[in-house]
């Protein structure tokens, strides 16, 4: 019963950790917009965590520049299981307009397994909410597997 409670709770209280890997701040602003009164994801239990140790969902924005690659990867590795990695915006998914630059290491998916991609440049807050909802489903499923 306790396990079931935990699995149920896992979907109801996902905490986000946001990593900016060289983003233009467009996506970052949208992610913050999600917390504002109009969208208010806190009613779904979402919360921005300050440290990766406390997070369930890692949201990566930005084209994963060469400087930030190792930092991003180590921060992601510090998130305890079960965790879910979400790329937000086009940059971490492909590199977007920075594609092919000598200093950009995107896509992120060639280094870690990315669970959810939220497309958009920058994504609309509704799209972010949808993506995070998908991420919580994956989270619950992962918790069930543990």
């Amino acid at each position, binding site marked *: 019963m*306790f396990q079931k409670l935990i699995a149920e709770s896992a979907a109801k209280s996902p905490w986000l950790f946001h*990593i900016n890997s060289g983003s233009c701040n467009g996506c970052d602003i949208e992610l913050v917009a999600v917390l504002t009164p109009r969208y208010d994801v806190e009613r779904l239990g979402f919360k921005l965590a300050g*440290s*990766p*140790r406390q997070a369930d969902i890692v949201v990566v924005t930005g084209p994963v520049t060469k400087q*930030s690659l*190792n*930092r*991003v*990867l*180590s*921060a992601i*590795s*510090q998130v*305890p299981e079960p965790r879910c990695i979400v790329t937000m915006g086009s940059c971490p998914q492909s590199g977007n307009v920075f594609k092919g630059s000598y200093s950009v290491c995107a896509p992120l998916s060639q280094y870690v397994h990315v669970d959810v991609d939220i497309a958009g440049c920058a994504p609309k807050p509704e799209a972010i909410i949808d993506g995070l909802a998908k991420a919580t489903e994956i989270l619950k499923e992962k918790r069930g597997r543990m």
Partner: protein
Amino acid sequence: MNLANMTDYHHFPIYAIMVLFLGAFVVSVAGTKPSRNLKNPAGARAWIALCATGLSLFFLVMLIKPVMLKGEIIAYWMGSRAIAGGYAIGIALEVDALSLFFALLIATAVFVSAIYSIRYMVHDDCVPQYYVLYCLLAGGVLGLVLSGDIFNMFVMVEILTFAAVALTAFRTKVYGALEAAFKYLVVGCMGSTAILTGTIMLYAQYHTLNLAQLASLIPGTLNNATKLAFAFLYIGFSTKAFIVPFHPLAADAHGAAPASISVLISGVLTKSGIYGIIRLTYFLFQTMNLGSMQFMLVFIGSVSMFVCVTMALAQHDFKRLLAYHSISQIGYVLAAVGLSTSLGISAGLYHAMNHTLFKGLLFLAAGAVLHETGTTDLGKLGGLSKKMPHTTALFLIGAFSISGVPPFNGFASKWMIYQASYQKAVETNNIGFLAVTIIALVTSTLTLASFVKVSQSVFFGQLPREYENVKEVPFGMRLAMGILAVLCILTGIFPNTVTGALTQPAARAVADVGEYITAMGFKSNLPVPEVSFVQAGVWEPINWLLILCIALLALTIVAVAGKYDRVSENEGEQVDTKYQLFYGGEKNVYSQVGGGDLFWGFKHNWRHYFDFMHDLHSGIVNDYALWAVVALALAIVYMMIVL
């Protein structure tokens, strides 16, 4: 002399002193050549010193039953030269509960420190000489507190000052050791001179040096010369107790001396000063029922308390920081003793005892860190808890004790001090004593803050590379610390037993001066006082701890059942990124929050005060001498006006 006569407990005080001086003699006779045993360069000499201190402790423990529990006062005339013609000619030892209380503290500290020294002094040269001085110091302090004769007190003060100065300068290579010793010597000698001058003035008036006789003669015959003598004696003993304005000496001396000696300086020498002040104010002059005297002691105690704790917050050296805390705690003792209520005296003595225990423990822990890493700079150390887990645990016990965290002993005694000062305030309807309660409570928190700083910058935080190979200290050193830690916990958990057996008899002895005089064979018409130790509040740590333990047990069961401790940890030598610290994703960043900046939020508001204090503690010996002279002048003026 037959054996039965020799084992009479009346002889034990002198045995306790003799054993130590004999020890010093035997050690010095054994020569100065270090033994080939690398683990113990002093060889058998260390064991001789240990035996001497142990025997001394044994003799004093044997005295607990007659003196503490039965209330007997041992008056012991050396060579049986008792009173002749109403005047005490011979040299006397007089052991009442107060003397024995301090003697027990001293003997315990000395014994534990001797255990510690064996392994601690391994790296030093001239270790044989160390033990000579060590025994001299111990004997000097013990002689001071057991003596029934004011001139002998002076002689013992000189002996212990000498030994202490020599031991402070013992590690001549240590940064500032010689300088600290010289400052201590100059101001210490001014103090000794003041004691001698005061003694002589008393002798000129009353033609006796015996404490009991002086106590019976002085009251009611105060004239200017007596007041002058009182001021001189008071300042002399203040220098020994290192209370404000003599605290910089303590800081210098503690920082430079070996840790085993710092234990003695803070746990033993300061106590001898406190003992002197108690004897002076309660016995010789019996001035403590005067509001002005109470005011002076409480004021100086509170100032010491607060000034030294703020000075400690500004320190960057482990041992200097501890030294300032030491004086801060002595401030507690002085303020409590100055309240002049039985509860206050009992609380003050209890705190004095606890101070010896926990400050000894802390200095030994600092010594352990110094022994393994070679430095006590808070900025350079860090993360030692992984390498020295036992030392860390013992340090934390000491830190909790000094910060007054229940259920350790510091809390029990501080709680008594708060109550005593508040009760005094209510009884006398004097809001000034209330300020003492508040200062004491705030100081306690500041102390905690300071020790959080130490634990963060020495034992926790990140381990610097150069200390990768640090190991736990040898068993002998841990044993010494362990003894003190166990005593810290026991005296904290059973406060009523401890106060009943040790501090209340001592406080009763302080109140009952007439008994002290008559025991020596003089006449006294002082009434037997009513002594009560009633407190408004209760502190029953056993019940409280029991509940806490049950709660903790229940939690632990839940935690274990819930596989709380099934955690993922790094395996193997290489540290995976998952187990590295989160530092913005950075790898291997050496970043430790400096020990000095931890309390910016507090210090920023007090920056003018801190700047002022820093300028004031200039480190020039002339300035400290000037403080001593000014203090003497102020004391003389104050005594002349109020007494």
